[in-house]
């Protein structure tokens, strides 16, 4: 009560222009937020629906036999396997865990874990919808592929998976209950998984969109521009944003689009490459599957390589 009274007293002392400014900013914020959210929601829905169908209808045992056990071939194959699984960085972690359990080599699994959130068809389409079928899409895929393969090769030197994976692994997917038998049951199970994942991811999307809208509304363009000078600092800023915003890769292209014009091509590219591999929620999920050292490598190597790519592109294309 005292706080409310205090707020009322303080607000009564403020000039009307403050409220007018605040109201204008809130209108802008609402417009930007809704713009990002409404544009992204269909892709999130599509991604989670496809994820549910893959979870129920794809035979992972059979698929794991297709992957080579030679390090380079396994890493490259694992990365390209990401092209057929429409999962973002949240959905890919339990799927990778299950693939490890089925005998997938570390190098292939790690490459798949890092590449799938970017190379999958939903992300390709959403990136193309935001940036067109041009350089941003191409370089996002290419740089992500390189990072995924390199990190996969790094992990290929470890012969004992137990040194990388946590000893206690729950093999059952959180959505998986009694195995559905009939086609109708499978569809129902897929939709349930899709619905769960949609609402789970939807929360991150709302938070990410609100943060992005807040940044665009309340942080003056001149401030961002001062940050975006030079070849290194803007990349670091965008890498930090990628971690903090934790936006699902199926929709992050639309958020990144808002930064074009303020940040350079290389900075936005680094955001699009690093964000799907590492963010707050994926770090937490990695910790449930991998040992601490492995998690640190999964974070640091993509960070450094994304930083290198961003700086290189800032140099080549200011």
């Amino acid at each position: 009560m005292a706080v409310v009274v205090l707020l009322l007293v303080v607000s009564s002392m403020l000039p009307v222009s403050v409220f007018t400014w605040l109201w204008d900013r809130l209108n802008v914020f609402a417009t930007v937020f809704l713009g990002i959210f409404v544009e992204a929601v269909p892709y999130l829905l599509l991604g989670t629906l496809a994820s549910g169908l893959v979870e129920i209808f794809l035979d992972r045992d059979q698929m794991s036999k297709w992957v080579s056990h030679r390090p380079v071939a396994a890493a490259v194959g694992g990365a390209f396997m990401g092209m057929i699984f429409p999962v973002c960085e949240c959905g890919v972690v339990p799927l990778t865990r299950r693939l490890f359990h089925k005998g997938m080599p570390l190098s292939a699994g790690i490459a798949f874990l890092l590449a799938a959130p970017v190379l999958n068809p939903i992300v390709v389409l959403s990136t193309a919808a935001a940036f067109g079928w041009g350089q941003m899409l191409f370089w996002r895929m290419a740089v992500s592929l390189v990072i995924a393969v390199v990190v996969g090769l790094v992990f290929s030197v470890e012969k004992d998976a137990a040194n990388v994976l946590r000893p206690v692994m729950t093999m059952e997917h959180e959505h998986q209950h009694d195995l559905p038998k009939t086609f109708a049951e499978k569809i129902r199970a897929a939709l349930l998984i899709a619905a769960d994942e949609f609402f789970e991811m939807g929360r991150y999307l709302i938070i990410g969109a609100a943060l992005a809208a807040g940044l665009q509304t309340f942080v003056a363009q001149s401030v961002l521009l001062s940050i975006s000078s030079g070849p290194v600092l803007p990349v670091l800023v965008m890498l930090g944003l990628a971690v903090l915003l934790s936006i699902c890769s199926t929709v992050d292209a639309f958020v990144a689009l808002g930064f074009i014009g303020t940040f350079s091509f290389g900075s936005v590219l680094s955001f699009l490459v690093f964000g799907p591999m590492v963010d707050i929620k994926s770090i937490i999920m990695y910790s449930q599957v991998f040992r601490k050292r492995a998690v640190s490598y999964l974070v640091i190597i993509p960070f450094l390589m994304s930083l290198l790519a961003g700086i290189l592109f800032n140099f080549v294309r200011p």
Partner: protein
Amino acid sequence: MKNLSPLDKAAAAVMLVVAGLIVVVILFAGQAGVRVTASNFEGGLIGPLQIITLTFSEPVDPAMAESLLDIQPSMEGTFLWVDSRTLQFASALPFELGTVYELTLRSGILSQDQHELKHDISWDFQVRPPLVAYLNTQNQQSSIWVTDLSAAKSRPLTDESVKVIGFDSSRDGEFIIFYSTNTQGGIDLWRVNRAGNDMAVLMDCGRDRCTAPAISPDGLRVAYSRELAGPGPDLPYGSPRVWVLDLQSGQNAPVYEDQQVLGYNPTWSPSGTQLASYDGLADQIRLLDMESGSQYIFPSNTGGPMTWSPDGTKFLFTEADQSEAGVRTLVRMADLALNDSYILIGSEDDMDYGYHSMIWSPVDASAVLLGMRAGGDDPSQVFWLFNPGLLDGVIIADQPDYAYNSPHWDVWGDSLVFQQFKLKGSYKPEIGVWSSGMSESRVIAEGLMPYWLP
């Protein structure tokens, strides 16, 4: 080191290598100084009115940067700083066709903190060949097509499924806005770019009729006539009023708040600051200064064509005069400085020449093209290119039994594109082109309503 596993060693090695590469790149970038890229030079070709954009890798001092910039052959123009890293150059006159331009940014200090461009950078570019857009009505379709002047590369710009009624092209030739009937019986505005790959509804007008779009010279606004649908399907449409749609913000509103002010055929002045339209109820051309809000009114009873002088201080329009000798079409010159108009052509005519299709050169105040009847009982028409100051000129198109209309100058004021149609017999409308120095025009396509896409 003994406690490090193979994974630790491999990861450490990769991290060290990548970190080393980052250091090398940063050092190399630091040595390289300020970097600059120029956009919109696709294949070294640009539009004649294209704005050139330079992007610097870091904020620079505008005066310092401008002092280092040079274009050869020399072109006058204005610099616009979008932000401290982005410079735009807008040429005062169109870049010339066939000339290779060299844009050079000389090495030197670019900012107060002594950041410098270490080496001269040059970009070569030239103007792309102009295209002509026209309405193709063959085979039951009504689509916009484009062709080059050799007529060797004709292609459709819009889908056959959308029946185009009419259109306008942007001054820089980058896009077209056309109008087409929708499923509710109204007429929508559509937009399509030069490549024809992004056709989309620009303004869903519902049951209203949105017609006669006119794109402002800067390409940022569209003026159009809008007839509001009646409250019921069988009730008549309202009278046309002029609206303006802002293409950037999407803001869309009538130009005049007073609903009694009608208007159609909106026309922008060359500077884009004034908008003229015809009020058929009051029999007058109404001109609004979009910046000051001041209005000018010129009586006219034809609603016919009006065309602006290159400097935007005058315009020509037609008027029908009924006298004892019969109806005479007059051409009047409106002078905005005097806020008055006077008869330029027609007061002494012994017959009605039916003046129509006037178009003033965009660069030469002494060149106006005028459509008129050939004379006598002959229904044929001719195009007369004349000097409004001297009232003398030359006939540039006068084939027997032909009618000419819809002329447009190219951005250089060198060539005209127009529609021609043979009056006797069954013939299809054709697109003709005439250039200064040509003894007669030539046909480049069959079609209607041609516009340049520079």
